[in-house]
């Protein structure tokens, strides 16, 4: 089962895990990305392209499913305004054995950073607002998975 979503509402991690886990899997890996309150950050805003962001997430999910033997895959990215502690992204991957579940999870989070139409804007307590710049390290991590 592949579930790839972009949503403005809060990600209910427990409910998503229940849905993902239905039936049970031999091995499941997870990644949960949360908003950090570093430097007195008060808001993280995620801009997106209504059609292309959803299509990008679906493409990425299918690329992982083509590459590894997965029994379930959940890939949910939140958009809009968030505060520190809220979940930005949830990745759940399951397989018969741990190696494929763990590799697929890492692939998805690495590629999310470079392949999907999402842009982060940070607002700080002192009023500063800045768009996050891409990091070279993220590009290198995404490229290590090849085409």
């Amino acid at each position, binding site marked *: 089962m592949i579930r790839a979503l972009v949503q403005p509402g809060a990600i209910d991690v427990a409910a998503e895990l229940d849905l993902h886990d239905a039936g049970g899997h031999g091995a499941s890996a997870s990644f949960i*990305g949360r908003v950090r309150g570093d430097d007195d950050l008060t808001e993280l805003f*995620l*801009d*997106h*392209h209504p*059609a*292309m962001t959803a*299509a990008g997430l679906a493409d990425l999910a299918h690329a992982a499913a083509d590459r590894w033997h997965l029994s379930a895959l959940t890939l949910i*990215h939140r958009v809009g305004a968030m505060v520190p502690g809220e979940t*930005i*992204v949830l990745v759940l991957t399951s397989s018969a054995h741990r190696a494929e579940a763990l590799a697929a999870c890492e692939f998805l*989070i690495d590629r*999310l*950073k*470079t*392949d*999907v*139409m*999402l*842009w*982060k*804007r940070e607002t700080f307590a002192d009023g500063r607002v800045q*768009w*996050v*710049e*891409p990091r070279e390290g*993220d590009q290198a991590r995404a490229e290590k998975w090849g085409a």
Partner: protein
Amino acid sequence: MALNIAYFAWVRERMGIADETVEIPASVADVGALVTWLGARDARGKIAFAEPHRIRAAIDGVMMGPDAPLSGAKEVALFPPVTGG
């Protein structure tokens, strides 16, 4: 040629609008030329497109490079490199 252009992230903020329909001259034939043309069109375009190498583009939902032709395009999206995850 009439073209729908959509802007995202800081490109949208600097342009002050999310999208517009523009009549582009025949000489503006590809994505790179469109970015140059928008950058020269007015004050906000000059700010938004001051650094063309930081602009990415998609034509009708597909990521494209600066050499991609605009003929037949319905919507061009212009945006900075992505930063999700």
